[in-house]
Each structure stands twice: as C-alpha cells, then as structure tokens.
C-alpha cells in the first residue's frame, strides 16, 4: 500500500497539471531532487549500523570465541584504518584477489571458526533481521573515510581481475541486451531522475565507489558494494552471480581501479 506500485505516471502527470496552476514558483526538478538529497544527508541511519558493526568487530564470537580485531584486511593484522580503500587486493594466504566482504568472511572463518555457510547466511538485511556482515562492512568502510581509494591492480592476479571486470562491464546479454556499459559510459545522463555515473572515468567511478557501503532509503537498509552489483545484474534481467563470486570481485577491481584517487566518504545515503 505504502509502496504504491507502478500506476504512477498517470497520477504524477495529473498532479503536475494541478501543481502548475497552484504554485507558479516551482523549483526545477533537478534542484528539488538536490534539496531532497540534502535533507536526507543530515541524519544517515547507516550511522547506527556502523556503531553496531564496531561492536560486532570487537565482540568475541563464533566457535573459537574470538573477535575480529586480528583480522588482516591487507594492511596487516588488526589494521582497519584505510584498509577498505585499498581493496580488492591479492592475498597470498588465500591465493585469491579478495574484496572487503570476502576478506571479512575469510576472517570470520579463520579467526572465529564459523563455516562459510554460517558466515554468509544473512549477507544482507531483511525486515526484522539485520545483517551482521552489512554492519561489519559499514564499520570497515567508515574507517577508510578521508583516505583515497587506491587499487593500482599491479599484481598479475589483480591485473587479470581488472581485465575480467572490464570484460564483464561491456558484456551484453539477456532479454534487454544490457551490459553495465549501457547506462554507465556516458557523462551527464539520467535514468528517470537518477544521474548515472560514467564508471569508466575517475570522477564517475569515484562518485559511486567512495560512498559505499551506503544506506538506501528505498530499501531501508545499508547496501554493500557486493549487494549493489548483484542487484544491478538482477536489474539487467540476468541470473544473479553468487555472493563473493569472482564476477562481482572482478567488477569491483575494475571500478575501484577506475575510482583510484577519490577520497572515501562513507556511509553514503542513496535513493
């Protein structure tokens, strides 16, 4: 009911007609949307999620009754500050290129003794059931605020992942002929009223990547970058890649690589 479905156009068009006669001093749609976003920015519910993540990080949990404080996110055991901004990266211990989320899950398995299934059982929140992973990633992300994204993909394994990410970015298929590139390779375009970043540029990729994890008001929860990308792929009408799969991490390497140099500012707040 509250989430009124699609009959909107007719309604909106009608109401616009009315509004035009009622109030001559209407703002431009783009200005009004900016105002809407400004009003949202002051008071991001993700701040509460971040606090919960910090608690979870420090709490001894799992079969090994250990906290995550010794987790190596790429800058050494226990170093959280600035780590998110330099992920994904290649990890020798696992022999894989890992993003913040796959590395976090790795630590939940190795340090806390969870199985992978247990660790990722609830990788995103549902109404009434908050996700621990989401909270932890929000905490980790915020500890990179003020730091520039730096994913140079110099290691051969990272370079290969960047190439794979680029390949997937341009790969068209499905009943709408979509690829990521369909919406995200031009400057200054909109889908409906939503600006689309040109993700092949530092500015476009940076604007997107610096603000995740982000609270999405349409979903009423924080979305991690994994969630963001998996849902983009759902919107492209493809089957979903698995959580933490290489396709998603490869896209992240590509996007973080393109965004490198942009200063982190999380958690964001989005439509």
């Amino acid at each position, binding site marked *: 009911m509250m989430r009124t479905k699609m009959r909107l156009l007719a309604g909106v068009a009608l109401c616009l007609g009315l509004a035009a006669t009622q109030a001559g001093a209407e703002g431009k*749609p783009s200005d009004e949307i900016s105002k809407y976003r400004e009003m949202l920015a002051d008071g991001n519910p993700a701040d509460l999620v971040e606090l919960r993540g910090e608690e979870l990080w420090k709490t001894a949990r799992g079969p090994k009754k250990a906290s995550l404080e010794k987790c190596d996110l790429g800058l050494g055991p226990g170093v959280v500050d600035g780590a998110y901004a330099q992920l994904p990266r290649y990890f020798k211990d696992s022999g894989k290129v890992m993003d913040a989320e796959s590395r976090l899950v790795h630590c939940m398995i190795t340090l806390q003794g969870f199985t992978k299934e247990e660790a990722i059982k609830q990788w995103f929140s549902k109404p009434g059931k908050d996700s621990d992973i989401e909270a932890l990633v929000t905490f980790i992300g915020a500890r990179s605020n003020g730091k520039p994204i730096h994913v140079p993909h110099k290691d051969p394994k990272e370079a290969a992942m960047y190439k794979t990410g680029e390949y997937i970015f341009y790969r068209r298929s499905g009943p709408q002929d979509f690829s990521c590139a369909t919406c995200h390779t031009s400057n200054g375009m909109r889908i409906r009223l939503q600006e689309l970043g040109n993700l092949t540029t530092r500015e476009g990729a940076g604007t997107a990547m610096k603000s995740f994890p982000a609270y999405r008001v349409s979903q009423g929860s924080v979305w991690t970058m994994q969630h963001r990308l998996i849902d983009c792929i759902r919107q492209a009408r493809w089957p979903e890649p698995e959580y933490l799969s290489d396709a998603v991490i490869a896209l992240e390497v590509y996007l973080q690589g393109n965004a490198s140099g942009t200063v982190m500012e999380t958690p964001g707040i989005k439509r």
Partner: protein
Amino acid sequence: MNKDRRKVLKAGAGLGLLSALMAVGMISPQQAQAAIGRGAFDAKTIDDVYKALGVAAPTASDQVVINASDIAENGAVVPIGIRSNLPNTQAIALLVERNPNPLAAHYDLTDMAVADITMRVKMGQTSNVVALVMADGKFFSATKEIKITLGGCGG
C-alpha cells in the same frame, strides 16, 4: 492561573489540550502520553483527523512554513520540516492527505521547544501535506504538494 485555565478551556478536547495541561502543570508528560487518544491516527480523511483532534477548520497562515522538496525520489522516506513563527505555538501536527491514515505525527511543545521540527515520513503517492499548528489556542495550517517520482531503473 486563571488566564491559563481559560486557555485550556478554549483549546477544547483537541490537539493542544494536553500541551496546555502540561504547560500549566496539571498533568505530567507521562500522563499526557497515556492520555493522547490514538483515534486521530486511525482517521481516514483529514476532516476526520480534525474531528478527532477537536479542530475546526484551521486558518491558512504564511507564518506556518513547510520545508520540503517539491519532489521526493522515494516515497518511503520523505523529509519534511515544519516551522511556526506564530507566538506561543503549543502543538504541531503533520498530515499527508492521500495516505491511508493522514495523521503522521503530532508534537506537543513545552515552553522550551522552538516551533521548528524536522521528520521523515512515508508517502504512498503524490499528495498534499498539511502542517497543522496550534498557537495561542487557535489553529493554523500550511499546505504543500510533494510529488513522489520514480527513480532508478523503475523495476
């Protein structure tokens, strides 16, 4: 005290009664909380909300200001601020005309409060929102239309 009593009586059984009672120290906030009828929240039209609150037609006033964008990208979260420049503002309420239950929130203000409140509400569709204010025992209002648009991929 006499003057205050009259004010209380004038306010009637509606929105401002509790704050008025609280202001003169006749009841505590806890009592006020328990005493506020939920009926107004169940009302299905603005008129019925007014009836439940004991409000006759409020006077439109440019001293009541709604601070909100004309367009909201998502109806699940619509930020709305209400400010009253009227002296002795005792209560503020927000109504969303086309929601199933128009009354979204009401606030009884004590002397310490500035009549300037911001909140976020759900709107099922494009609608007028009404800011209802009780000041000095009288009711005033402001109205603004907020359009709920579709953002993103639309799926």
